[in-house]
């Protein structure tokens, strides 16, 4: 049990879990940042993820002994001079880790330091007096680790039709004259879709489907956020405990990407693949197979 609680001046993190696709992150953050009482250092240009960084930074103290050719006592001791030493790389303590990770009055050091660092960060981050929340797009590991550290937070899961993400990822890469990062040079939309279906998408859909709306967690469909902005806006404000406010215009998708454009872009074979491999999951989330 971590007994250090964040001071009242701390902001409550709202972790927006997406697949990381920029086309998904931007409109979601565009809407959320207009809510008031929320602050963030994230913006599309800087892509700052302060909380993700501080969490990984704290985890270094988790008490795991790490000593190998690229990380050892020498690298701690000597100033940066050459090769590996000309960076500020750091990993777990290269020796008996129990002293930098041990339990003390029930607190593990990395958890204690994550709480402390979050408070130090909140003290310095530019914010309005009324701000109560800090918002950041993140990957699914972040809320899990924050829960492990018992740092109070909210998690907003963004579900999006995987066919739409596949189409956007594919065409966004083509528009820039480069392949998207998950694509190999020998991929076609079909092979990419197959790999996605087999390895990632089923687990993700299952994860979204199981998210229950609670005081701390909510799941919102990306498509609803674009098409039914008013309803989503009110749901989110209620979930965060914010007073009602006028509904803003629907968020911009950046490149005018309509939610159903994938139907025209993806080959029939790809659509059939999704239909046969994950019909049940798609239906459960309200997506027409």
């Amino acid at each position: 049990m971590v007994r250090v609680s964040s001071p009242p001046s701390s902001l409550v993190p709202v972790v927006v879990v997406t697949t990381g696709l920029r086309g998904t992150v931007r409109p979601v953050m565009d809407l959320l940042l207009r809510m008031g009482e929320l602050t963030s250092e994230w913006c599309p240009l800087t892509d700052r993820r302060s909380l993700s960084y501080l969490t990984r930074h704290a985890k270094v103290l988790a008490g795991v002994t790490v000593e190998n050719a690229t990380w050892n006592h020498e690298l701690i001791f000597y100033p940066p001079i050459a090769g590996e030493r000309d960076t500020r790389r750091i990993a777990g303590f290269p020796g008996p880790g129990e002293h930098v990770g041990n339990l003390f009055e029930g607190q593990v050091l990395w958890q204690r330091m994550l709480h402390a660092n979050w408070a130090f960060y909140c003290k310095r981050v530019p914010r309005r007096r009324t701000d109560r929340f800090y918002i950041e797009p993140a990957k699914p590991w972040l809320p899990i680790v924050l829960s492990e550290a018992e740092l109070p937070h909210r998690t907003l899961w963004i579900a999006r039709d995987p066919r739409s993400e596949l189409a956007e990822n594919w065409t966004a890469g083509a528009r820039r004259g480069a392949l998207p990062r998950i694509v190999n040079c020998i991929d076609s939309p079909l092979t990419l879709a197959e790999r996605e279906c087999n390895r990632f998408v089923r687990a993700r859909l299952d994860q979204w489907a199981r998210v229950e709306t609670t005081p701390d967690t909510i799941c919102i469909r990306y498509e609803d956020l674009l098409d039914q902005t008013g309803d989503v806006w009110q749901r989110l404000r209620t979930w965060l405990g914010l007073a009602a406010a006028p509904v803003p215009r629907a968020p911009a998708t950046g490149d005018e990407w309509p939610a159903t454009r994938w139907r025209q872009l993806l080959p029939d074979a790809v659509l059939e693949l999704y239909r046969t491999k994950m019909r049940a999951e798609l239906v459960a989330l309200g997506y027409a197979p």
Partner: protein
Amino acid sequence: MHPDDQRLRPLLLLFPARSGSTLLMQLLGTSPKVVFDRVAPFEHRYLAFLVRWSWQLADGGLRRSDWTVEQLMNEPATAGNFIEPPPFAVPAGFGTARPDPMWHDTFRCAWREFCARARRAEISSPALDPAPIWYAEKSRAMFRYALQDVGIEPHVVYLLRDPRDILMSIWSFNRKRGTSFFSVVEGESDEAFARRFIEERKLRLRMILEMAPDDPHATVVRYEDMATDLPGVAARLSDRLGVQLDAQQVLTNQKEFSHHMSSAGPEASIQRWRREMSPEIQQLFADIIGTEMQALGYAV
């Protein structure tokens, strides 16, 4: 007790290699009021680790090109994974443009936590004093400056040894083990290495010469004194640090550390250069750092 009262005061040993730092750590280890891992050669540097960990929040920079936002986001937060300064513009919340940057708070908090845990975990010895005062570590000047930045004044012990004997000890150590430690570059001639070594020593000797003789936060310990009169050094340091150091205990255990020595014993390691060093290299010392050595009492 106020949390700050539980903090141990850092005792940093600043030393060139082969100048008796392990012997001095042995001596400090005879007091239960001095905390550090009693595992030879006493190089578990917790303080250096926590300083460098806190520095990650200092001002970005010094990142590898393959440390990107993608990598930050996609790797789960697992202990043991590498981390580098933020792979994006430094967040304003890190306060690097303010007089009280976040890393100062981070280090102070981590140090307070470590001290409390170190007391509880008895890293020092099974018979750790209930109220230890010092945390000792073999260190470097940059860590002293880092501590001063965050408002913690360490006590520094400078180890001083005749640089000519240090050079002989380095060569002897490497010959004995077939290694090329202490920045020895393979293929480099003895004279070229000696010249590089002497140039490096110049700065260190000047630092000691410029130290105020009555500096309450620094002490100079000569290797030659430790080798010939360890009880005298123990008495002087005990007085200086407010602890009780036991030279006899170290002398009794000396055999256990024979593998670390490169001469027959501490006494034999003094003025070894007179017996083993070539006149040409002796002349190099005289030409480059003769003035500094004489000012520190070493005959040239």
